[in-house]
């Protein structure tokens, strides 16, 4: 049986259209051998949670630059819990003030990658958090 690839949903929530980061990360994760689904722009937390279920992803990567993270992230985490997706790893990349990092982690965000993070650091983190049964044996 072929090894199941790590499945990642890259999502761009909110009204912001600056998608350079989301697209660069999508490509870097794909080059690292992961299965990447990009939602496109202007996704509500509801749309992202549904896509995560439908695509059966291991990881959700949110790209947020607009300052709307404190509204978007807690709602997404609630929706994921309600859908029983308790083991999905959610990471954020973007512009997040230091003061917001601890509350976001408390809300269940696994990691926050700030400007300057390398794509390798993101790949490594995702690998460290995802071990699928197929990969285990």
């Amino acid at each position, binding site marked *: 049986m072929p090894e199941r690839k790590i499945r990642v949903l890259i999502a761009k929530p*909110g009204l912001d259209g600056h998608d350079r980061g989301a697209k660069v990360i999508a490509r870097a994760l794909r080059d690292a051998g992961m299965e990447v689904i990009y939602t496109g722009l202007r996704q509500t937390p509801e749309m992202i949670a549904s896509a995560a279920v439908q695509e059966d992803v291991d990881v959700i990567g949110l790209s947020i630059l607009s300052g709307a993270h404190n509204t978007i992230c807690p709602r997404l985490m609630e929706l994921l819990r309600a859908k029983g997706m308790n083991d999905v790893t959610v990471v954020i990349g973007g512009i997040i003030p230091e003061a917001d990092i601890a509350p976001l982690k408390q809300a269940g965000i696994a990691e926050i990658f700030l400007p300057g993070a390398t794509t390798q650091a993101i790949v490594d983190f995702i690998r460290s958090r995802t071990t699928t049964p197929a990969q285990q044996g």
Partner: protein
Amino acid sequence: MSGKPRDNERSASPPADGRTIGNRERTPKFTTVSGYPIRQLYTQADLVEWDANRDLGLPGELPYTRGIHPAMYRNRLWTMRQFAGFGTAEDTNARFRYLLSQGQTGLSVAFDLPTLMGYDSDDPLAEGEVGKCGVAISSLADMEALFDTIPLADVTTSMTINSPAAAIWAMYLAVAERQGADWKALSGTLQNDILKEYIAQKEYIYPPGPSMRLVTDTIEFGAEHTPKFNPISISGYHIREAGSTAIQELAFTLRDGIEYVEACLERGLAVDEFASRLSFFFNAHNDFFEEIAKYRAARRIWQRVMRERFGAKNPRSWALRFHTQTAGCSLTAQQPYNNVARTAVQALAAVLGGTQSLHTNSLDEAWALPTEAAATIALRTQQIIGYESGVTNTADPFGGSYFVETLTNEIERGAEEYIAKIDALGGMVAAIERGYPQREIADAAYRYQVEVDAKDKIVVGVNNYLTEEKPIEILQIDPSVAARQSQRLRRLRAERSNSQVERSLEGLRKAAAHIPVAAGQANGNLMPYLYEAAKAYATLGEICGALRQVFGAYEEVAIT
């Protein structure tokens, strides 16, 4: 290090005295921030095809390589125009008045994301975004507060808004009228460049066809009513921020300009009726000489386009005027004070490239919107260049430099190749629909990231020269902004004449459903309808919603 391709590194001309060339260079490849190869030395031999009269000329004369004014900054400095906006209209009004009191010479409005997308502050989709990336403007009432006690006849105002640009401009014109300002005297710039939204920044609402119509409507309306206002700022800034190379930025921007000119000609306007009001907006990125060469090449290409492609006769139609903003994407969250140095170098390139106006980014912008203190340093940086550095004493100080002239030639050639390619694809709208510029930019952005990750490109404080640091103080947006805006909208909807609003929106919908015909005949220009709706205090969400009903919404096919 040896084994490098010599022809890539060395000037076309080996030195006449037969000097050998050092082969211990510290890196195998020297490239600009865009990845463009730079040789070890440039000499006269690089310019054998180049003719100083034909290709350089004099400042203020064709082909405008050296700038569009004979004396350049000896007559007047560029307009120091700092982009600002956050919170409510009152918050931003206070920042504007502060900046004007500190010697800033023009205003520039940053709108929040709901406004940029045509939603009112109380729309459910606006939740969490009101007043965050700019000021929240949902109606003429907000616009009146934004410019309270600022006389629009005396300041020049730039408004960075695209899909809802025509509606926002209608509100601005209504404020001007209320202040008693003559529209003919109004000076400023509406960004209103929808093509680069599809290409790069992605703040689009409607499909390209009706969007191009709205742009054409504003250009046509402006040509008649606001002769000193720039109805469009054709922008490479966002293309570059999305990760393009300098050549792509230049090429896609100028090709967008060609697309707008063609749309206006189809409308029945004569090129010299509107071309002198077309303005441009470029990025100033880190690579000093590449940027200077880019601005010089831009002017040289545009005069040729205007004269040869469109047959413009008025010299004012030939001269490319542009605003510059230093590169936000070059700023680092790490060691943010280093950003002052980056911004100074970038701003210097813009000035040496002959910009007409300039925004310098603040040191804290990789974290948040700027604090007042950070915004002040950014403005001071421009004043230091303008008044202390001495670079403004003469026009085009780099004119005739082997390197700058060669790079100008090469960037010009690279941009023209892209322009020809987009012509062959059937124009920019067709190219966008095929994802061509989007893919070129995504590829360049990814290449750059790979280079930074591999440390082929050093970013100080990010992939080298790291230090432990404490967080800096950043601007906090008052969390009550959204609630105050919602309250204001409730009051507005209660106090205005809702039947008048409904009538104006119905008029707008009907006009939008008709295809505009050539100027001079019964005209389908939407500006008068937008103006009526604005004056009736229809909200931005209502106006853009009415047009959405007629035009539909655009969905892109995402390219990753």
